[in-house]
């Protein structure tokens, strides 16, 4: 018999001593479990956030340790969600930390059969050049009646409903100034 186990460690006695009459609490907790601390308790900081999926806008608490998101939970302070998250909101830690998430810029050349790695800044510069060239090639100054159009129909964009207001603002501002009018997002789908 394990010398550390005494009468006091008998299950029923443990239950009575700890007030755990149903036997589902501390009286039956394993040593392993006792040594576990929730990630939320050991986090360096907690940041208030908002669920990125649907438009209910449930409050989230993002727990950060060593510069990494370690857990995301519902924010009980939110008057809308009162701490709750649905399966999607609850899975958002995996959205952020998923090993399958793409972390590198990639390039597929015309007719190419596979992706090639590319430097991010090279890619952005190439996109900027194509933006300028396509705009120049497809520019429409006036319509057939001579009325001003001042636009390009050669550049289009789709997306925005998952983005921040500030991001949508810069997109609309830049595209409009460039004369690119074909901007759309999920709101029309």
């Amino acid at each position, binding site marked *: 018999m394990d010398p550390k186990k005494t009468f006091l460690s008998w299950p029923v006695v443990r239950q009575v001593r700890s007030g755990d009459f149903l036997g589902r609490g501390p009286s039956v907790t394993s040593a392993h479990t006792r040594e576990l601390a929730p990630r939320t308790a050991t986090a360096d900081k907690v940041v208030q956030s908002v669920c990125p999926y649907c438009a209910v806008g449930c409050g989230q608490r993002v727990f950060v340790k060593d510069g990494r998101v370690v857990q995301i939970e519902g924010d009980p*302070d939110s008057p809308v969600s009162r701490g709750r998250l649905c399966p999607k909101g609850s899975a958002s830690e995996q959205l952020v930390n998923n090993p399958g998430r793409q972390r590198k810029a990639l390039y597929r050349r015309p007719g190419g059969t596979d992706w090639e790695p590319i430097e991010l800044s090279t890619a952005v510069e190439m996109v900027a050049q194509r933006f300028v060239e396509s705009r120049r090639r497809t520019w429409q100054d006036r319509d057939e009646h001579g009325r001003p159009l001042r636009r390009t129909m050669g550049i289009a964009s789709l997306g925005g409903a998952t983005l921040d207001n500030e991001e949508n603002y810069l997109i609309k501002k830049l595209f409009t100034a460039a004369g690119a*009018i074909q901007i759309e997002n999920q709101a029309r789908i």
Partner: protein
Amino acid sequence: MQDLSNADCIVIQGSNMAECHPVAYQWVTEARLKGARVIHIDPRFTRTSATADKHIPIRAGSDVVLLGALIKYILDHELYFKEYVVAYTNAATMVSEEYRDTEDLDGLFSGYDDAKGSYSQQTWAYASSDGEDDETPGTIGGPAAGHEHGEAKSARAAGDEHGSGGPALEHARVLRDETLQDPNTVFQILKRHYARYTPEMVADTCGISVDDFEYLARSVTENSGRERTTAFVYAVGWTQHTLGAQFIRTAAIVQLLLGNMGRPGGGIMALRGHASIQGSTDIPTLYNILPGYLAMPVAGLHDTWDEYLAAIGNKEQKGFWANADTYAVSLLKAWWGKAATAENDWCFDYVPKLTGAHGTYQTTMAMLDDQVEGYFLLGQNPAVGSAHGRMQRQAMSHLKWLVVRDFNMIESATFWKDGPEIASGELVTEDIQTEVFFLPAAAHTEKSGSFTQTQRMLQWHHQAVQPPGDCQSELQFFYELGRRVRELLADSTDERDRPLLDLTWDYPTDEHGDPDAEAVLAEINGRHLTGDQAGRPLSAYTEMKADGSTDGGCWIYTGVYAGSVNHAADRKPGREQDLTALDWGWAWPANRRILYNRASADPEGNPWSERKRYVWWDAEQGKWTGHDVPDFVPDKAPSYRPEPGTGGPAGLAGDDPFVMQADGKGWLFAPKGMLDGPLPTHYEPQESPVQNPLYTQQSNPARKVFPRKDNLWSPSGDSPGADVYPYVFTTYRLTEHHTAGGMSRWLPYLSELQPEFFCEVSPELAAERGLENGGWATIVSARAAIEARVMVTERMTPLTVTGRTIHQVGLPYHWGVGTNAVVSGDAANDLLGVALDPNVQIQESKAGSCDIVPGRRPAGEELLRLVAEYQSRAGSTVMTSNELRTGHPESTPDTREG
């Protein structure tokens, strides 16, 4: 959202709230615990139905008949809220004598133009109090419209320009008959219009029994009035139709008649599906509007600043749209700063002009015609999520370059190597000349910014960590792209580059080059530019000026940064506040949580009842007060009456609660602004096995159709060949996935919860077609054939419609064909064609025609042959179901340009 718990009855229609907006559903549950009655109207029995008092199955696309019958019931039994209706709606307003109803013209309103397939709205106008009808009746512009008439206007998606109130009227002088007896009053027109929308018609058209209809009608009317309120809740089950905007209008009429607008536990709640889909409409990444629902100018209509100003808001109309010039000047000042001066009309000519509808589907077709060179996909996956996935993927293969910014390698980024068209041999990887850039995006935890949730509330999310690897926020990417484009053009002397070079494009960045989102929010909010306040943020849009002394990127958001405080980040815990919770986040406009809440008080300014007290007039203090920010001029007494003819906010009487409407009234009848009619009328979907029982006119005559070989339709109604695609299909979401799956099918947790594409069929349909639970089925439409696992379930109910049994097939649309996701499968949206609502250019994805047979679909060329074989058996040609005016085969214009 929380306000739903104040309702005495909640009707959820066109939404599966418990599964698609689960956390919001707690407020429905709360209402029910307090005794409210909850009714779910939906083709499928879902968890929403399971927790409601009653589920009423309905044939997809027949909602206007049901709601129209509700209107008739309310009017016939005199159950409308009389004082509210007379004082607050346009029921008493007289309409032009030239107006003809669909009841007179067999399914058309007056003003229909066969050649253009659209309406002139002239005859729908209010009669004028100047004795006769105005010289130009109905020449009342939208906030976007000005002198436009219907036909010109239909070139654009006018309906959703009015996101912050109705379209403008020329003036507010109208004729009224407060006895509601004059045959030209809106009230009497309404009565005549819905006279044939009987419970029997509901039974015959929607498949809803007379008893079920009575239950609904009694529940709604018994729970409305002074003491009680009913709320309606909808989602895309209402919007994604060729008359989607009219579905919602019908509910608005019901709610206005019952006096449920602007009151606690009332209203119509739109449940939107993306974290900031409301925000991306307010600050639009949409073609037809500028921030704050200001219209994009249209060539030929708004060529000059004066024409544009006259169009966006008329100084003679009532309400806050009369000040639209201040909003527009402030926007132009925010964008072009010092370059924008009074002399150059604030750089108005820097804004590009529209020439028609340039929506996402028109753009897709332009890609197929090689007119579009470059395309950005920003967190969106059209290969799976847009209607007619095949057309989407084919279109992208025509691009010169494609930029995909996402977390995961979505199907839209890889269609060139593993899309279904590669498998079928229609596309060959080596032949696709599209250059593709995949640029990884930062997550919400890796950037700061605000989302606007479904109830117009902005909530700030704070950056928690740095984005990994090459991941960047859109803020950083677009700031950087703009910087580089401007650099490339720096030496340009070309006049066309001025708008880019003069653009204010200077934001403080952190050490990683990420711009400060709060600085952008401050620009959106707006600032004083001159005087001793210079540089200080505006605290309300009423401070905006048209003389260039203020700027502001989105007037409806002004106030979110009042006092240099980011109110989107306000976080006073809910339990320390009342239910309205004004100190959590910030709702536009002016942090108001219920719009038009002046209507929660009676004309004298007292609450309609103690039970429904919300906002009221405090006579002692001489101001409006209550649980919310009052939606009214703060110190305007209920007894105030303006001089006749006064425009702007000053023109609003003390009992005109609908402050954004040009006459201050809630519109039962829309004299302007709806492109397919001033009153909602039932039309069948573009594809329907049912003949329209009300009119010869089968479908919405103003809908947008695209007759082309790659967009064929099933014959409808009694037309020969309709029985080839005998079943109705409808698409929907599941709790565990998010739209096209870009944020869910790559997550093992969520993929495990919902691993595989399936279809829901009733036991009766399973027996009829030999489908086995757990087995495979092939579903064929006039566009595509896909395969799915079969779920045989009593959640699907066969309905009896016009004496026939109608089966419906349910299809969750989250899966797509690719090799990178954790789970993949055929895409339900491949079945859809492209036919659009004329007001908002949204596609009809909630009702289509299909066949379903047991077994897996063939692959390769055989798959194409199967689809073609069905098309030929049905006799589908480019004309099929595309006739805009039924019985007039010549009325099949390609409405792409209009």
